């Protein structure tokens, strides 16, 4: 019996103590009519060897194509030490540190994480994780409604240049509480949110303004102006940020004159593998004044009976297990293990390493853009400062091109023309520090050939 330690003798002895004739008797309270006749639709058991072989075959089928997609999940180098430590049973197989004294490892790590994230965002307080960046934005919007007591409108301004899936998720989650999301357009030339588009909201009740830096196109926004506008107009400012970029870009806490109020985003770039989309983690940081409105776990440092320092979950009165229907969020299980990875990652990279990863990724993307736009039929959509992504415009539909590249072992970017038809045949590409000059050339060569041969075929 895989994973079950009971011997026949154990079972007999245990049933005797219980006073039941057999195990089935323990289920006697289930009405007979409801009893399931087993699970015929489930395949029979495999041994570890069999499923291992099977998984290896699935994996081999997918292979390891050369990746040039970002769009919210970034392929960075992950130090071997990260997952060697994360996979230790003491981190891996523990749960939420409800018994603080028996969880000081996890708790201290989370306290360190909070410190790192607060500093990275230049805000005072960080929670201990949310599910992911997109749902984190939804939580940030709900938090803004709670925190901005003066605003009654539930109106949140979202840039069109925000990752469109983030918008979808914010709508799906926060929409149920009647939040109203309105859209800020972007400049067709520069790919940046049009600051003057805010003017129409002047004097209106706006609960919060969201900006993504860098935005979905990789372009850098004028965060200072937008933040100042928000504060001048009684709105809270929410920044959606890429944590790697914060090693070089102005952090949300320093945007504009007063700094953003809430920063959130996806922590995936910090040591979390792409893994087909998850598990990643959402982070959130804010000013101290809003701490009681923040969703998610928070760890505090305190002392024990002997006065020795130690760590514990704190401010639990905000949470669902205490506050129930009045909690700041329903989140319970979060993404602890990924935060563990991120904390170790940030420790290994340090301020210098993270800055170098960021700057090198920018450089690689520039090299990629240069190499690809040299190809006839490929041009750059926005020539404004960017981080490590760029939108390219092709002279033909993107999808078949991507399929052709995939056959050559290259994952060449994301077709964003569905979400942004106004851009034309738009391809969002990314290169991080993991892409070499060679890789970029390989891609450029493949793309050139693909375009050439599909032109010939047409």
């Amino acid at each position: 019996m895989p994973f079950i330690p009971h011997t026949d003798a154990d079972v007999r002895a245990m049933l005797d103590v219980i006073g039941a004739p057999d195990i089935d008797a323990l289920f006697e309270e289930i009405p007979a009519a409801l009893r399931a006749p087993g699970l015929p639709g489930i395949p029979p058991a495999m041994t570890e060897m069999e499923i291992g072989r099977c998984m290896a075959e699935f994996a081999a089928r997918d292979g390891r194509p050369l990746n040039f997609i970002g769009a919210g999940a970034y392929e960075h180098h992950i130090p071997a030490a990260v997952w060697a430590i994360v996979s230790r049973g003491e981190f891996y197989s523990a749960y939420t540190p409800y018994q603080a004294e028996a969880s000081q490892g996890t708790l201290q790590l989370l306290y360190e994480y909070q410190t790192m994230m607060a500093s990275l965002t230049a805000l005072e307080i960080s929670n201990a994780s949310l599910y992911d960046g997109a749902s984190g934005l939804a939580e940030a919007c709900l938090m803004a409604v709670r925190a901005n007591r003066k605003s009654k409108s539930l109106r949140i301004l979202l840039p069109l240049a925000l990752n469109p899936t983030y918008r979808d998720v914010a709508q799906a989650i926060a929409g149920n509480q009647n939040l109203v999301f309105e859209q800020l357009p972007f400049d067709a030339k520069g790919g940046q949110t049009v600051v003057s588009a805010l003017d129409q909201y002047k004097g209106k009740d706006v609960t919060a303004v969201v900006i993504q830096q860098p935005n979905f196109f990789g372009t850098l926004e004028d965060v200072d102006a937008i933040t100042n506008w928000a504060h001048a107009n009684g709105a809270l400012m929410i920044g959606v940020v890429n944590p790697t970029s914060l090693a070089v870009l102005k952090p949300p806490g320093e945007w504009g004159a007063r700094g953003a109020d809430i920063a959130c985003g996806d922590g995936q770039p910090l040591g979390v593998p792409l893994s087909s989309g998850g598990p990643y983690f959402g982070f959130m940081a804010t000013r101290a004044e809003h701490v009681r409105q923040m969703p998610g776990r928070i760890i505090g440092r305190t002392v024990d009976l002997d006065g020795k320092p130690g760590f514990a979950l704190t401010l639990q009165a905000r949470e669902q297990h205490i506050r129930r229907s009045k909690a700041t969020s329903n989140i319970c299980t979060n993404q602890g293990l990924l935060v563990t990875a991120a904390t170790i990652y940030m420790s290994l990279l340090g301020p210098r390493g993270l800055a170098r990863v960021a700057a090198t990724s920018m450089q690689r993307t520039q090299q990629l853009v240069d190499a690809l736009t040299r190809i006839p039929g490929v041009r750059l959509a926005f020539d404004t400062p960017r981080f490590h992504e760029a939108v390219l415009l092709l002279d033909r539909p993107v999808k078949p091109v991507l399929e052709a590249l995939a056959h050559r072992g290259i994952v060449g970017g994301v077709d964003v023309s569905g979400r942004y038809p106004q851009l034309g045949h738009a391809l969002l590409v990314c290169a991080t520090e993991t892409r070499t000059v060679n890789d970029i050339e390989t891609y450029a060569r493949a793309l050139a050939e693909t375009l050439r041969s599909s032109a010939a075929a047409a």
Partner: protein
Amino acid sequence: MHEKLIFEHAAPGRSADAQYPRVPVEATVPTSLLRATPPLLPEVSELQAVRHYTRLSQLNFSIDTHFYPLGSCTMKYNPKACNQYAMLPELLGRHPLAPESTGQGVLQILFELQEMLKEVTGMRGVSLTPMAGAQGEFAGVAMIRAYHRARNDLARTEIIVPDAAHGTNPATATMCGCTVREIPTQSNGDIDLEALKGVVGPHTAGIMLTNPSTIGVFERRIREVAEIVHGAGGLLYYDGANLNAILGKVRPGDMGFDVIHMNLHKTFSTPHGGGGPGSGAVGVSERLLPFLPVPIVGRDGERFRWLDQQDLPQTIGRLSNFMGNTGVLLRAYVYMRMLGRDGMQRVSEFATLNANYLMARLQAAGFEVAYPERRASHEFIVTLRREAREWETNAMDFAKRLLDYGFHAPTTYFPLLVPECLLIEPTETEPKEELDAFVDAMIAIRKEAETEPAKLQGAPWTLPVRRLDDVRAAKQLDLTWKPATA
């Protein structure tokens, strides 16, 4: 062992150089967009980081090191195979937006997982995207709302929740813009049907139930409950946190539930990771199929592909940036394939056997069990109200003292309706010897409570720290380290 903060190991200029590009590059952005001062990340060597976090890990209790009978959390063994095979380089390296043609392997896994979960729950459709139980609850209640909205039945905004429910249930109802109606639990552990009849009506969106409930008993009149709620036009939500108790014995779909979330990190044993990640896959009956959150894996002949908003125009939408916690799903898949159809049934059988045995032994040892006339499900409640009354002790003291005896404490003070309670869930992967040792410890602690209560009040004594001051933690907030301003 006291371990300094990572920041206290740092020195300016120190770093783990192998971990980042060798050649410095300028970030070419306008200065107004540049960061002025570097972030406070620790400057440490690779060995320092490795040693620090290895030592920190040793300060934790975990399934791999300790019996961890945390009720409602299903802290069972997480097979190492699940981790190893989910971490194959190809699977880890795949970008979620890579063309489907480059992801047929992983898509097939997810498709098969969906199918297995349908079978296990008796539901008609499954979406894997919710990232934990609570998000699964959100998806479920949002689907219930969408269902009523689609029928233009707009007044249905009340969610009924028993008083024993987990906090995520009412919190979820609120997040979905609903109001919560609480109903009491009877002294025999069952729902008060009269009270239920009293609250249902034209405002009823639905009811959220766990069965077996958080008090560890199976709601015997679940069909009546279903009839009452359905009869009033509401839908039934099944909180699958306790699915481990009934796997293969009774299916939520057959009980009449319309929607269920499953905590794959509980029943299907993906690691709890010190707080997550989890997965809260949802299953639905026929009528909620159109509303499932996207994406879902569909199959066209031999090809697998993502079904999206275009395929399910009535979907409640997306709950995560991609498709949820894929890595967790891979682990659950490996686990389910290793269990197979017989193994799944054994899970509930032996989880239930362990719980009933532990309950019987503790009862025999003189502990008061909350619902003595009922069979335990996979967990049960001990109330220490007598001990608390007679001696200067309480459930928290017992919990802390158990740590000294080398056991993680059960869940304390939940559910809220039983005073001084311990919710104990041994899970099926613990051997009898471990349960017996736990009973021995409980007996020894009660003896201490009687004769030297200070042993409990001061507990734990043998851990890295003694009892921590929670009140101070909340009052004198210290949430980040600050460098000494020298």
